[in-house]
């Protein structure tokens, strides 16, 4: 079974090398989707053995993830794992995600930072709101809606292939999981918060909520 990890990243030259090195231990191939970085992160990833796809301009996390996943799909991946390039996810959790996916014959396994880490209070609050919205709007009961660490099958990717360019990609995946009635499970993962100014902001959170509302109405 062919497993490919997709790491979307933007200006992560300090962490990407280590993330790629660690990830390579658990998958057959690592694809780094460099979203128009201004630093040397693409070179760093390449030096550490990743296949690097470069966007000539910054397009957003969702767009970047889709470029990487499309490539993984074309390369014949049976399982696709996505994780962040800033080192907040522990690649050592990959076997747990893929193992659960295979053993329990699921379509998608979502990582949850909720139980195992010191998530900042503002993020916890935002997550609670978005998680309630996911449950009410799409019938998907997950605690951590914004975690970028997940694994899914080739077949599932065909059904969840998203349109979101930005951080709402994680919510769109949840929305599509509910809509397509995919078999899912949320499992706890380790997380290290590197930079509290990176990732989803309050404004992103509000934007995601309104997009979820829109998807619900358009359903």
């Amino acid at each position, binding site marked *: 079974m062919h497993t490919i990890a997709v790491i979307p990243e933007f200006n992560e030259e300090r962490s990407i090398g280590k993330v790629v090195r660690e990830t390579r231990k658990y998958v057959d191939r690592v694809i780094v*989707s460099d979203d128009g970085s201004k630093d040397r992160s693409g070179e760093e990833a390449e030096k550490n053995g990743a*296949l*690097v*796809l*470069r*966007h*000539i*301009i910054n*397009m957003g996390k969702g*767009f970047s993830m*889709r*470029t990487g996943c*499309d*490539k993984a799909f074309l390369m014949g991946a049976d399982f696709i794992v996505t994780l962040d390039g800033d080192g907040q996810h522990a690649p050592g959790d990959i076997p747990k995600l893929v193992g659960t996916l295979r053993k329990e014959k699921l379509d998608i396994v979502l990582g949850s930072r909720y139980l195992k880490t010191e998530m900042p209070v503002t993020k916890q609050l935002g997550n609670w709101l978005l998680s309630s919205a996911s449950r009410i709007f799409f019938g998907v009961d997950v605690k951590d809606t914004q975690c970028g660490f997940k694994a899914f099958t080739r077949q599932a990717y065909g059904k969840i292939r998203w349109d979101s*360019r930005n951080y709402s990609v994680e919510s769109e995946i949840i929305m599509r999981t509910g809509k397509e009635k995919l078999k899912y499970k949320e499992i706890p993962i380790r997380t290290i918060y590197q930079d509290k100014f990176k990732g989803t902001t309050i404004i992103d959170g509000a934007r995601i909520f309104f997009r979820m509302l829109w998807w619900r109405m358009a359903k």
Partner: protein
Amino acid sequence: MITGIQVLGILFALGIIYLSYLFYRKKDFSAADFAVWAFIGLAVLVPVLFSESLMFLVEPLTFYRLFDLLTAGGFIILFAVVFRMYGIARKNERSIDGIVRALALREEKHKSKR
């Protein structure tokens, strides 16, 4: 006598005509773009200078004053322009998406061939 609002209208219309000519000279606009925008400038100028010429529309369209008619007309035109711009922006966005993704995948393909 020309009123204050007419002066503003004249300046606005002349501004449109001047800027479109400037863009045409800089080759940012084609001759057709210049013609369209100059026509729009003139189309603004005519009712501003000869506002009485539109009085015949006020009553059939159930407006009380000519000013109301011009304001409503302005909003309708503005809405149409925004709608058209939105369509163009979305189309461009989709084109950019396609180009960026195709370039990323093509660059990698070339690299792996080498």
